């Protein structure tokens, strides 16, 4: 089971760089999500890996095989990969069984009966036993999705590529299929690249997330790492909601935002430097205004500007005292504050994440 290594990939469409010096290592058996907004280059990256596109610079390695470079590209059919497309790309003129069996036609050593056996077996795995003779047009969206999965897995690929495979499903089915794909990954353990723009999907499905922006990987890590310690403003805003505070470093671990002082986590700051801090709404606790807070927490005062009850949590907008900063705060359902009420806010410095510049 090989891993995949992307080394300095670049591809331009005209003057626009779709992918620019993109590098990423995928460990054998790992499922990595390429996450980013539309136009970030994630689908281009996937198509580069599949061999549908040729990089202008950089290389793609699978194990010890160099599959793509600017000068030579192994065509898709000889890459031992499989791909699941956003549109599923099921052939409408073939039955479910013919669709699934197609890739096995190119395994020379396999007998006809062996092929049939594997197709039946794989359709059982995706819970489509008995649908062999149907045409794709006769299936629901979820069933088509499962056929596409079966068609990709039955060939036992070294690498599995998925291009937003769940974006055409409705919300309930999408959630169900996330777990399904994760289950299949744990069963087959195929090295997988998964393209999505849906952060929740990436978090549920993947071992590791690579966040893409402007054709580059801006941060990669586990869901915890990406959510808890975003490295740039873009990552902090793209993954989950957050409060961003632009300020100036006052001491190595304090920033000033207007008249506010905020102790922050992370590396030592250079006093005077411009700094952006991300604070997740969930990391802020609401209480009574306190006059003498302890030394280890950030304690602020504010006034409730708006309250929204969201069912499993309550969402507040709090206007901070002596400042024009408005913070979003999410609290468990419990004691409810009213609009206009004066409140105290406490924030653990460890939850105040300083961000690097990303030009955004």
């Amino acid at each position, binding site marked *: 089971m090989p891993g995949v290594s992307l080394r300095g990939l670049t591809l331009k469409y005209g003057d626009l760089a779709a992918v620019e010096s993109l590098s990423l290592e995928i460990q054998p058996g790992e499922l990595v999500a390429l996450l980013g907004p539309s136009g970030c280059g994630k689908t281009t990256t996937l198509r580069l890996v599949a061999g549908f596109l040729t990089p202008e610079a950089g290389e793609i390695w699978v194990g010890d095989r160099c599959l793509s470079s600017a000068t030579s590209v192994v065509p898709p059919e000889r890459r031992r990969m499989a791909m699941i497309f956003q*549109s599923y790309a099921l052939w409408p003129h073939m039955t479910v069984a013919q669709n699934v069996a*197609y890739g096995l036609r190119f395994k020379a050593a396999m007998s006809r009966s062996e092929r049939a056996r594997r197709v039946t077996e794989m359709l059982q795995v995706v819970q489509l036993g008995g649908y062999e003779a149907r045409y794709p047009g006769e299936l629901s969206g979820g069933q088509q999705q499962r056929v596409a999965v079966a068609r990709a897995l039955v060939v036992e690929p070294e690498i599995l590529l998925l291009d937003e495979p769940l974006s055409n499903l409705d919300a309930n089915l999408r959630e169900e299929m996330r777990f399904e794909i994760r289950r299949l990954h744990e069963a087959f353990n195929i090295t997988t690249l998964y393209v999505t723009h849906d952060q929740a999907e990436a978090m549920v499905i993947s071992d590791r997330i690579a966040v893409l922006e402007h054709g580059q990987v801006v941060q990669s890590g586990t869901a915890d790492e990406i959510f808890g310690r975003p490295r740039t403003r873009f990552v902090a805003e793209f993954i989950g909601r957050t409060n961003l505070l632009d300020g100036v470093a006052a001491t190595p671990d304090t920033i000033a935002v207007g008249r506010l002082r905020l102790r922050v986590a992370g590396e030592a700051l250079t006093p005077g430097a411009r700094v952006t801090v991300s604070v997740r709404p969930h990391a802020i606790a609401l209480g009574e205004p306190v006059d003498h807070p302890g030394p280890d927490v950030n304690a602020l005062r504010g006034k409730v500007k708006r309250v929204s009850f969201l069912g499993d949590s309550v969402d507040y907008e709090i206007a901070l005292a002596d400042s024009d900063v408005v913070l979003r705060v999410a609290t468990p359902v419990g004691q409810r504050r009213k609009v206009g009420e004066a409140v105290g806010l406490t924030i653990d410095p460890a939850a105040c994440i300083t961000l690097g510049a990303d030009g955004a």
Partner: protein
Amino acid sequence: MGVSSGFDRSALVWVGAALALVLLMALPLGWLASLSVSGEQGVTLDHYRAVFSDVALRKAVWNTLVLAFWVGLGSVALGAPLAWLTARTDVPGRGVIRSLVLASFVTPPFLGAFAWVMLAGPNAGLLNRVWRGVTGAEDALVNIFSMPGLIFVVTIYTFPYVYIMIANTLALIASDLEEAASILGAGRLAVALTVTLPMVLPALVSGFILAVLQALALFGSPAILSLPAGFHTITTQIWSFFHFPPKTEMAAAFSIPLLLATALLLLVQKRLLGRRGYAAIGGKGGQRRAIALGPWRWPAFAACLGVMACAIFLPYGILAKAALSRAWAQPLTADNFTLANFSFTFFEYSATRDAIVNTLELGVATATIGAGLVALLSYVTSRRLVRGHQFVGFLALTPVVIPGVVLAVALFIAYTRPPLVLYGTLTILFIAYLTKEMPTGYAQSDATFRAIPPELEDAGRILGAGRLRVLRDVTAPLARSGIIAAWCFIFIGVIRELSASIILFTPSTKVMSVVIFDLKEEGQFGAIAVLGLVMLALTFATVAIVQAVLGRDVLGVRE
């Protein structure tokens, strides 16, 4: 654009495309332009001067403009209401009316003109004889050999162009767009004037231009109706330049302005259509509810049938009658009934027999090679297999601006001289037909390939199939019906072609349309009728094939 190792492939396609371009268009049109300005002492504008200072020729231009304008207007007047009635109201027999419009669309206009000679010729015309019989009048009721007669006959076979444009546009406008206006207080008339009309206006103008273009380029109907009436149009005038002694320079000088006018009009039409998109905004899922005509249902139906009687029932009826009669002008009694016209046409008269064979040969050859060519071109362009693929597509669509007569003049000039002397062969007709039908075939084929998502091919590639294998397993089965349709469109276009054939034929390379034209000089109406029916039968059989393979209406496909 990230095309892998595409250079050799590009080179091959480009050499082929360039060669085809030179042979089909650049060489002929180049010669056309060059001959139009060549004099004994080099470049001259004498031919243009001669053409436009000649009063008779200026009259031909004027006649053409009059014809084109009124045909455009008439086509809108017939096509738009018919489209609205069938697309948006509860008029009875909508399916029948639609089929009849399609029949009018595929009827060769010159056949219609012949039929109308038999119907409304001033002396022997059926309608005029009935009129005299009923009223005892001396004079004819109508004379088809006149400008109004010509306009009428051309219009009844041209209005389907407007019909298609309007019907397709109306189909895109969801009723809720109109209801949105109603709920805000607009009455029926206000809705029609402020919402519906502005949305179909581009299609209306564009349909008008299409109809004008048809009338400009038409040869058959003017030749049949205007020459006996003693006037020329541009196309018949160009044709007469080829009467002995041929004046090809004059023909060339007369062709160039027609070509430019056509190109200009098409450009305007394309601009208009390019802005048509807004009609579809918000059309998703919108329903179209039929407007109740109430007491006007049956009168509206009768009006539709009236139009169709002029375009289909009467002409087809008189053709059938003439085919089965000894004397076409006499009532079809037992004495007058005969099958001699059929045996004469098929077995006794060599000219008609040969023409049928030539037409079928050319039809099959052009359709087969043409369908193969457009399939290749549109696959290459839709899959962006070569650099500059947009340009390939553009080239394939360019011949649409060349009227048949002009194309024929250009081919005549280019291929009556070395290095390629093709005049007098079927090959020159083949080249003319291929060029003329390329845009239709390409548009159909291109739509076919664009409807096949590239991912379907990618999915095969990644599972282990090479490009050719995917072409065989995935693309070909999915494109098959669309390519068959392209074949049929080209075939229909070829078997009815007259305006280029009339200049390029020689006695050994006559085709059906030309023979029909010749037989008229000899007064052989029975044989004409038989040939016409054969042509119609071939056309409708081919249309039926298209409808079967595409599983939908031909009218919806053309635009």
